[in-house]
């Protein structure tokens, strides 16, 4: 081992290091402001009145009363939130589990015609939801699932499986085959290999997939608008539009409702962002 015996950095080098660091920190602060400011502005607008929102949209609220937040909660946001949670959580679980199994089959087994099957599944990415809308409505009506949470759960799962499979498959291709081969030689079944070896190893991409699915299902509007009628089964994106009256919209209450609806998703992202970034950067390469 050698010990550095060089001269201390010159003043000029220190100066440029400080400048570059300042530049990087400034850039990061700016990026942080760009990301956080709209969220904070939305939350703050929930404490204002219509007049304040239109006349001084960027000013700090004059009072911090929770009246608008409570009003929004009682105007139906509570019901929309519950529906969103049910639909999002169930469809996320179904999507990720089915996709992980599919990806496992496509990457770790000796299935015939794998490229064809992979192409078939990924081909689902090209199916536009809008084009499929009318046959899907007929289908849901005929099986009695129209205007139920299950309609949305099934649709969200079906339409997200191709993309989620694509992500998990790419991640699994990166994993060494020695591990599952060793397990197979030890007599482990495919199910045991999947549950006890592959799934734990795929934790980052699983978390990423869950977050991506949640972002999709939480904000999805078209299916939610078409496939639900009753307020009890409507999710947040559709429910929030009902707060927007043709005349005399209480924008402060709308902002409060939007903040309530965005809060779970923002908290989830910050809590899981480590896995999210890692899963995407490691899995997206293939």
């Amino acid at each position: 081992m050698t010990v550095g015996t060089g001269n201390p950095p010159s003043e000029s080098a220190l100066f440029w290091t400080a400048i570059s660091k300042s530049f990087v920190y400034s850039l990061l602060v700016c990026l942080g402001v760009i990301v956080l400011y709209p969220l904070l502005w939305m939350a703050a607008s929930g404490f204002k009145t219509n007049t304040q929102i239109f006349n001084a949209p960027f000013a700090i609220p004059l009072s911090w009363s929770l009246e608008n937040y409570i009003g929004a909660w009682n105007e139906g946001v509570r019901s929309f939130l519950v529906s969103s949670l049910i639909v999002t959580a169930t469809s996320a679980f179904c999507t990720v589990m089915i996709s992980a199994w599919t990806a496992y089959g496509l990457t770790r087994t000796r299935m015939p015609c794998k490229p064809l099957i992979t192409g078939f599944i990924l081909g689902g990415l090209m199916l536009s939801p809008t084009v499929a809308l009318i046959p899907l409505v007929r289908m849901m009506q005929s099986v009695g699932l129209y205007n139920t949470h299950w309609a949305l759960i099934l649709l969200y799962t079906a339409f997200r499986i191709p993309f989620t499979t694509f992500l998990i498959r790419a991640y699994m291709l990166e994993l060494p085959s020695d591990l599952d081969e060793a397990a197979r030689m030890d007599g482990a079944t495919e199910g045991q290999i999947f549950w006890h070896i592959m799934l734990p190893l795929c934790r980052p991409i699983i978390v990423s997939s869950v977050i991506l699915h949640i972002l999709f299902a939480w904000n999805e509007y078209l299916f939610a608008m078409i496939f639900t009628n009753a307020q009890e089964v409507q999710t947040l994106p559709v429910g929030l539009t009902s707060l927007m009256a043709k005349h005399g919209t209480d924008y402060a209450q709308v902002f409060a409702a939007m903040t309530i609806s965005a809060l779970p998703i923002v908290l989830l992202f910050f809590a899981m962002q480590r896995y999210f970034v890692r899963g995407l950067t490691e899995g997206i390469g293939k």
Partner: protein
Amino acid sequence: MNKTSKMTAALWTGAMALATAQTAAAAGDLVKANPTAPVDYSGTLSIMTKFGSQHLSPFFRDVVDDYQKLHPEVSFELIQETDDSVKGKTKTLVATNSLPDIFFSWTGTWGYNFVRGNRAVDLTPVIGAGTDWGKTFTPAALEAFVWNDRNFGVPLYLDAKFMGYNKRIFADLGIEKPETLEQLLAACDTISESGMTPISFGNKNAWPAVHYAGQLLVYNVPVATLEKDFDPKTAEFTDPGYVTALTQFSELQNRCMRDAPNGMSYQAAIQAFSDERSAMYYQEILEFDGSANDETTLKPENFGYFILPVPEGAKGDTNAIEGAPEGYMVSASSAQIPLAIDFLKFLTSQEVGKVLSASPYGQPSAVIGGSDPDAMNANVVAGMADIDSASYLMPWLDTVNHPRVAAAWLAGLQALVGGSKSPEEVVISVRETAEAVGG
């Protein structure tokens, strides 16, 4: 008609027409209502409303509850949509042949698409002019749902456009309520000199300019010519009144409006009026309650309105008002047409009309005597009287025209407001579009 995006409405209209055409084979022949058919007070009646907003949704829930008290064997499936979502939902339900028994409809092209596809019951035998039920409606409202000389819709409430103004500001500046367009322009000059915006105008959504144009068009172009031009097959758009009306609108914009209207939303414009930052705002009667109330700077006692004044020498119908009713139709595929009609009769009774017209709903009932002046905003009562006495209800240009012609009006007038087109160029673009559509 929807406030948030009438352009979207026009596009949806086109899409719905396509869906209707695609499934026309599934639709049967014209179904006519039978006034003597017995009503079976049992089963489930499905209704799609446009009262899905939190503010309006209790209305239908209460009406349904009241009806069920009279007929406990009848149950309801209420599909309450908002201004925007009702378009997409309707389009999908039409295409899947699953329209509810009773469904919401606008007048104009939107409603005609249901008629053309035989999706709506011909209600002429029960609601046509001269029938007992038909006599209970404001004639102009009933007439708006007539196509091919047959009644297909039940008007529920009326809407029309008026100029709201701030009485206090007018009084402070010594301005009288204008009687002619020229007096209005002079009033604008006086208000401008005081440093205030005369009329707040937000045209980001394109339809606000269409509303001004619609009222000025009916003043300057004979009604017969307008109605001929609504149909692309007979449209000519050669009457000089078109250019005259748009020139008057440009003059109004130059002298009464400020800033860049195409960059301002209509919400911001009406808020400016409610905050007393502008002296006038051109609004629908449905907006009277929202423009001035106890929570706004402009208090109800300082709110006044007038019909957009008639220009001197106008050659059209000077007693017409721009506006249209909104209402409901009965699905031709409904298995319970007599029950649906019975419910609609209940919905359009004077008692229910009074509830609809009063606060908090504030939707002027289309039923004669369907309002209680004591329970209503005095300006709304007076506005309803003006609608009743109007010689003609000028429909919204973006719903009465073919969707492509409507789009030409919207785009052309936005360009006129932005200064990139002249009145002549706007009329030419509309004429060319109508010619292309009419073949």
